[in-house]
């Protein structure tokens, strides 16, 4: 093995037997180098993504967790069975899916024109600035932005005060703690996940293609339907998948902005972890049920809208 020239300290390390039999040996072959390069991201994935899900799976299959003195825990599927036996838990899951689907569709409709404007109407030299302006609110944390929505929509919030000041209303309109406030807050919080993939996809559409279509007599709607929409499909699929998966698992926003009729599945799951009784395994089972159903829904959507071609989110 040829050893490159290093300073004295480094040479000691490189010439040591430990180095030569471990890292030194690994970097000699191309395969070894690739494994070495891949090891860190793999470790990251295992520790921060696969690990917690595995732990949740393990807890979901236990009869008791945390295990109290004098109690023995054993493996069981009963925690999963509870979901299918009790309709009260099925309702919040269905509500979550309906809500996430609606929020995704609404976000797409709202954000698409914005993304198109930035990608195609704004001059190339101004696009970075326009994007930066759109991203400014996202520099604040999720909770701060949620509380800003509360200050906006509360009975004594900015909107009601303004409407009262200009004489349009006598009594405040109850906007907060409703489906409207939850939808509004959620779209505001997650629109970034839709904006960036859409911008990226629309920006890549060649402008001469649109000019040619116009020259051949295609009106704005035809150009949108026949050229822009199909060519931005990748962005739509990616954006919708990201927004849908975020919406389905969102917890703090519905807790803060939602009302008595907007109790979603994550809140049901959290009640098993916060409740007085020993119910972590049921909560873990429900969390995995939500994860699997959400992934299946996203996969079906990607298959239907994204075509047979494999697409990355």
């Amino acid at each position, binding site marked *: 093995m040829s050893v490159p020239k290093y300073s004295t300290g480094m040479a000691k390390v490189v010439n040591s037997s430990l180095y030569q039999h471990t890292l030194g040996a690994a970097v000699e072959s191309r395969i070894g180098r690739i494994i070495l390069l891949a090891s860190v991201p793999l470790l990251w994935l295992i520790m921060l993504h696969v690990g917690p899900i595995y732990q949740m799976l393990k807890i979901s299959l236990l009869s008791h967790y945390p295990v109290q*003195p004098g109690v023995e825990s054993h493996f069981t599927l009963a925690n999963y069975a509870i979901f299918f036996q009790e309709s009260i838990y099925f309702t919040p899951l269905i509500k979550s899916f309906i809500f996430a689907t609606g929020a995704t569709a609404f976000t797409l409709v709202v954000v698409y024109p914005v993304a198109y404007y930035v990608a195609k109407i704004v001059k190339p030299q101004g696009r970075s600035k326009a994007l930066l302006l759109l991203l400014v609110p996202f520099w604040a944390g999720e909770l701060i932005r949620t509380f800003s929505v509360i200050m906006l929509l509360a009975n004594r919030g900015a909107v009601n005060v303004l409407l009262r000041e200009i004489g349009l209303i006598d009594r405040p309109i109850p906007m907060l703690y409703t489906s409207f406030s939850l939808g509004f807050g959620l779209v505001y919080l997650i629109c970034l996940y839709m904006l960036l993939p859409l911008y990226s996809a629309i920006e890549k559409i060649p402008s001469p293609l649109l000019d040619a279509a116009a020259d051949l007599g295609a009106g704005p709607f035809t150009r949108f339907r026949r050229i822009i929409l199909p060519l931005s499909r990748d962005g739509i699929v990616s954006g919708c998948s990201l927004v849908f998966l975020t919406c389905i698992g969102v917890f703090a926003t519905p807790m803060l902005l939602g009302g008595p009729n907007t109790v979603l599945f994550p809140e049901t799951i959290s009640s098993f972890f916060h409740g007085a009784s020993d119910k972590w395994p049921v909560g873990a089972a429900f969390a995995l049920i939500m994860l699997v159903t959400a992934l299946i829904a996203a996969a079906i959507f990607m298959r239907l809208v994204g075509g047979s071609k494999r697409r990355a989110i």
Partner: protein
Amino acid sequence: MNKIIANRRTALKVFGAGTALLAAPYIIRPRPAWAASGVLNVTTYDKFLPQEFLDKFQKDNDIEVRIRLTDDQGKQYNLLTAEGANPSTDIVTVAGHRYSQFIKSNLLQPLDTGKIANWKNLNPAYQDAPWARVDGNLWGLPILAGYEGLARNIDYVPEAPSWEVMFDPQYKGQTSYIVSDFMTIVMQYLGYDGDFVTYVDKPDVAQKATNEARDFLIKHKDMVRKYYDAGSEVQQMFINEDIYLGHSWSGPAAKLIMDGHPIKLSVPKEGTFGFCYTLNVVNNAPNAENAYKLFNAILESPEVGAAMTRQSGYSSTINGVGDVLEERERMASTLPQEEVERIIFFSSVNRDMKNEMIDRATAEVKAA
């Protein structure tokens, strides 16, 4: 994009940087509680321990107090149970009626009052209260007492002699409550035992009573603006006038009164439940001796108890606090005698049955 060339140098550099990145949280993390001597880890509610008092305590004793906030007894219990024999906290804040659950799970150590020189400064009513002694031992230092009251905005709701006002159609969409807590109140309102004490070995009777309260709440769901969880939420809703009526722990409502908001807190004729928060030393606490130093410091002066009342809104358990509070502060946490007599302290009897049935009924109300 530049292509990454996987030569030896790049591979080693990326591997080294990546490993350092992954290892950084372990290297730079704060020293764990069990490895630190001049430290005290306290799990408690927001605004229970005044910062000024903590600053003085830290300075006088050379002990760093690390506060971890909780807003729910169940969360605190679950986290402590999960940590098992190696707790990362020395003190927890347990409500007296939850003692049995914590003690049965071996999470607390008995309180040695001999180590608290200022124990005599605790109001005698709390020094050996019936609810405080379990299995022959005392388990915690009572710090703040409260009750579940009916809070109302007096600009819109002039009178509220009964819990019935929470279901009055003229306040539709303008009430709020914590479902699990209010369900026990509704059981009382409907003539049942909301504390389950009389339902020992009578699960059928208890289930029937719980189901009636659950169905009643579902029937009147349109009265509710929001189901809340934390005291700060109900405060915010009252301030924003999103609600005019609410079931509230006495602390958050009293705090609003102290701050000058047009809120009144009362105990309706059907009665309510009282509770007392205590600071408890955790079993296997790594810094138990420091915990006793904190307990002693809390009892040292009524000024500390007064500051706790001012911040949290709850009544102090320390002698002489009433003399230190201003008139407005005292009035905010005081009830007429006839209303005081309507308060029954939560019992620790039959808690498992109560938790099981109320948790389930709560989920049903929310899902309905």
